């Protein structure tokens, strides 16, 4: 084992070179890791590559890290010169071992800025660092910087060129980038539960690269449906759904001229995943698929319905999860706010939307009824759309002609019925506590706002 200063230097230079050539020879490395190995065995490199996984034997890290760390700091203090190639190699090794070393990422930012380093390479390096350190705040911060750098480059190109082809290429590139970010976030979320940095990065990406793009938001809502169902303790994952829901609803509730709802559902690929499992479908499709006609209000109501349905299912299937109850609060709150803004109630009491178009409801109303157990059955009989004390404008009424079951699901009264059914049927003490807290929240927070 290397001990003297000279020996360490030789060893470290060899390892840094091995890492850099491993990346050159194997551009598909997709994960990094530490191989527990306290002593050097045989006379071979501590860098091991197996099936696109790059491993570093742990015995060399205690030599490697201080050496590359100090070398970079000497460079930063202008005590030691390094050319750009050496800087790229050293920071790569450093950041794979210690990705929260902010200054090393900053050195790479400077290299990107002066055109020496391709920003895509840093998206790759940071992606690899996240396979071992999925929370690392500085890695996520660097990713955001790189993405912004690329976006600025895009806008510079767009200003210069009027070419349609060029613009399309950029748009495709942007779509690829968004897709890649979603994948990186998803992987990091799987590696560490309630990964705040991963999920808030995901939100950032949508805010900076896809705002107003209803299709992207909707695809995201579909794509995390299964994920949250399998990670019922992951509060950050559910918060992400809340973010998506809120943005979609805000967007869909704006005037139709500002965006087109018909663009949302033009592709059919996601439909199967957004259809609530428990709804029998007479015609094989949800009314949602019909929103190509621009029926935004219907879509909003369905989003609320589906989210509440998902939440009820999960609360009943996985008792005792605070995350699920917290999600319910959010969905109900969002509905409550939306209803206040968009379905105003002149007498200030709870809106009791009555459904119309019962003939279109098919099995949906049954689900709705079973949900609330004793929901008044006359809620979904045919009749004009009505909000207690206030009628909807005529055109909205027409939009709702296909009938949405949501109001019978999301009344305050039904929330109480739901909670009571849990309290009466469940023996899990945590579930009971969360149900009581929810009831208390409805009584205190929601009731005072009505």
């Amino acid at each position: 084992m290397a001990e003297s200063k000279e020996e360490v230097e030789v060893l470290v230079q060899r390892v840094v070179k091995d890492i850099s050539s491993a990346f050159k020879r194997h551009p598909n490395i997709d994960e990094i890791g530490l191989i527990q190995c306290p002593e050097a065995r045989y006379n071979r490199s501590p860098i091991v590559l197996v099936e696109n996984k790059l491993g570093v034997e742990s015995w060399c890290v205690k030599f490697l890290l201080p050496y590359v760390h100090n070398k970079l700091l000497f460079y930063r203090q202008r005590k030691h010169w390094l050319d750009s190639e050496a800087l790229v190699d050293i920071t790569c090794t450093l950041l794979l071992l210690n990705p929260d070393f902010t200054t090393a990422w900053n050195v790479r930012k400077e290299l990107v800025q002066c055109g020496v380093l391709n920003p895509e390479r840093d998206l790759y390096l940071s992606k690899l660092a996240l396979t071992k350190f999925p929370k690392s705040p500085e890695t996520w911060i660097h990713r955001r910087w790189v993405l912004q750098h690329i976006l600025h480059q895009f806008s510079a190109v767009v200003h210069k060129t009027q070419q349609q082809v060029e613009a399309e290429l950029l748009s495709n590139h942007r779509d690829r980038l968004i897709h890649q970010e979603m994948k990186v976030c998803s992987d990091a979320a799987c590696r560490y539960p309630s990964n705040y940095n991963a999920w808030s990065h995901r939100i950032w990406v949508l805010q900076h690269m896809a705002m107003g793009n209803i299709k992207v938001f909707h695809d995201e809502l579909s794509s995390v449906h299964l994920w949250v169902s399998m990670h019922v303790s992951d509060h950050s994952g559910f918060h992400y759904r809340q973010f998506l829901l809120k943005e979609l609803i805000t967007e869909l509730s704006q005037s139709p001229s500002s965006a087109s709802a018909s663009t949302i559902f033009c592709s059919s690929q996601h439909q199967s995943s957004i259809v609530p499992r428990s709804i029998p479908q007479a015609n094989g499709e949800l009314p949602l698929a019909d929103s190509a006609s621009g029926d935004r209000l219907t879509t909003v109501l369905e989003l609320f319905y589906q989210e509440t349905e998902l939440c009820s299912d999960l609360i009943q299937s996985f008792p005792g999860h605070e995350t699920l109850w917290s999600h319910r609060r959010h969905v109900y709150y969002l509905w409550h706010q939306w209803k206040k803004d968009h379905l105003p109630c002149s007498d200030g009491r709870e809106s009791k939307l009555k459904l119309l178009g019962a003939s279109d409801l098919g099995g949906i109303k049954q689900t709705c009824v079973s949900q609330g157990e004793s929901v008044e059955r006359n809620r979904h009989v045919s009749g004009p759309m009505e909000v207690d004390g206030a009628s909807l404008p005529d055109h909205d009424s027409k939009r709702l002609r296909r009938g949405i079951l949501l109001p019978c699901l999301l009344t305050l009264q039904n929330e109480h019925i739901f909670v009571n059914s849990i309290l009466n049927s469940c023996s899990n003490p945590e579930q009971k506590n969360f149900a009581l807290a929810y009831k208390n929240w409805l009584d205190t927070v929601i009731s005072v706002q009505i």
Partner: protein
Amino acid sequence: MSAQLKDVIIKPDASSSLLLDKHADYIAAYGSKKDDYEYTLSEYLRMSGIYWGLTVMDLMGQLQRMNQQEIIDFIKACQHECGGISASIGHDPHLLYTLSAVQILCLYDSLDAIDVDKVVVYVKGLQQEDGSFAGDKWGEIDTRFSFCAVATLALLGKMDAINVDKAVEFVLSCMNFDGGFGCRPGSESHAGQIYCCTGFLSLTGQLHQLNADLLGWWLCERQLPSGGLNGRPEKLPDVCYSWWVLASLKIIGRIHWIDKAKLRRFILACQDEETGGFADRPGDMVDPFHTLFGVAGLSLLGDEQIKPVNPVLCMPEDVLQRVGLQPDLLS
């Protein structure tokens, strides 16, 4: 199928008395024992590490055991031409470490060791058009940095250097339906971010903008049966989150909403009786970060062996009196 509640069980033989001497010895010896590898791993946050160690020593009345001159020289060497201060020599300046450095200098009543005017210029330069603050010249935005900016300026008595109204507007745009705050608009509520945002609103005199009952509700729900507090739903209790939640409750005048005796028991159980220091949870490895927040938490809970701590700046109250700063608290 039933979920197992995410919490810890405090063993009957867990520490139940405060081992102040052990903690002071642990901090005093920290740093001298570390090897190259460990030192380099955490050097990127060295300045904050020093702030944690010195503050807890001061709260325990042991600040004189630390090497004042060495630390002040170190801070001087970390100030850059732009005015910002870095975590260590050769690292890049950042608001996080600028605040830590200013806090340390206040403990030592030695603000004149650095160029204060340049610090103000640095902080001011990081404010964005929307009122938010970048952490450094590379532009990352986070409500933590809004707190760092106003805390630094408040300690320097230079709050008027920035656009406070815009700064407040940005922080309020990060408020969520549950009364809490996240790192940016639309982000999940998180106890650490809530601490920063309530602290920010305290320092800017805007606590009335909070929905204190709603936020207090969310904060109280962080207390688990063990008595410890977590930072978000279904996370494990942790001494540092215990501080952030507790300090936020103190700022909004709702500290009596949680079970103080149980929290005290949890924090005491996180001590290492042999080495001194506090860990995140009972039985884990201790570190200076959790040691500060353990001791500071006990101070907020009223332990008279420790100096009173200020909940907004996590510094001894007597230091803030000397500086002439009294951040608002709701009653």
